[in-house]
């Protein structure tokens, strides 16, 4: 199993440009998440999804959009990039929290995308 795959690993954007961060998981997890991590800080939730077709805002959604057309994919879209969006972005997924077979109480994280907006 590949787990959670994020692409790209690194990206430099100019102010005002747009891009999509890709996230794919092959564990059939319903729950998926996007976090950002600023230098020396913890993780802040941007958006999350509890299943295909369902998304919701987290703590810091402004400037971002998501979609969840399939169980596997949860892309994060940045429109009109700003320097404040310079960060490391992590995608994560989790399985059922009820301990059912195949359940995974905690998150499985992707390797991250380091984004710089100049």
């Amino acid at each position, binding site marked *: 199993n590949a787990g959670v795959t994020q692409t790209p690993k690194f990206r430099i954007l100019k102010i005002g440009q747009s891009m999509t961060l890709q996230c794919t998981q092959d564990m059939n997890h319903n*729950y998926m998440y996007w976090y950002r991590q600023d230098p*020396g800080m913890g993780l802040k939730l941007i958006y*999350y999804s509890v299943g295909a077709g369902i998304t919701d805002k987290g703590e810091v959604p402004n400037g971002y959009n998501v979609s969840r057309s399939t169980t596997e994919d949860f892309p994060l879209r940045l429109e009109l990039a700003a320097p404040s969006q310079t960060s490391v972005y992590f995608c994560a997924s989790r399985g059922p929290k009820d301990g059912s077979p195949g359940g995974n*109480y905690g998150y499985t994280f992707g390797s991250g995308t380091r984004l710089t907006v100049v």
Partner: protein
Amino acid sequence: ELKVEQNPLFLSMQEGKNYTIYCNYSTTSDRLYWYRQDPGKSLESLFVLLSNGAVKQEGRLMASLDTKARLSTLHITAAVHDLSATYFCAVDRSNNDMRFGAGTRLTVKP
């Protein structure tokens, strides 16, 4: 609103010494998680604590959970350089995501 506070935020310790990292949280939760992050890397799951009084151990690390006190501890025994990393605790929120602490950056010196 759920708040998760870790202390200390920075910890420098010598090899062979013991120390404890504390994680306090503000609202009721019976699940707490510890993660490790190496510089420039992703987060790796260390422990999942699922009930009051839960204790998990892996090598030189031991985690415990007291849901009544809303406190978890990560105890380091006889530290070695390989334990140098940032350690995060996280608590489940009702909407199926986790709230993370700010992290404790641990440096183990020879």
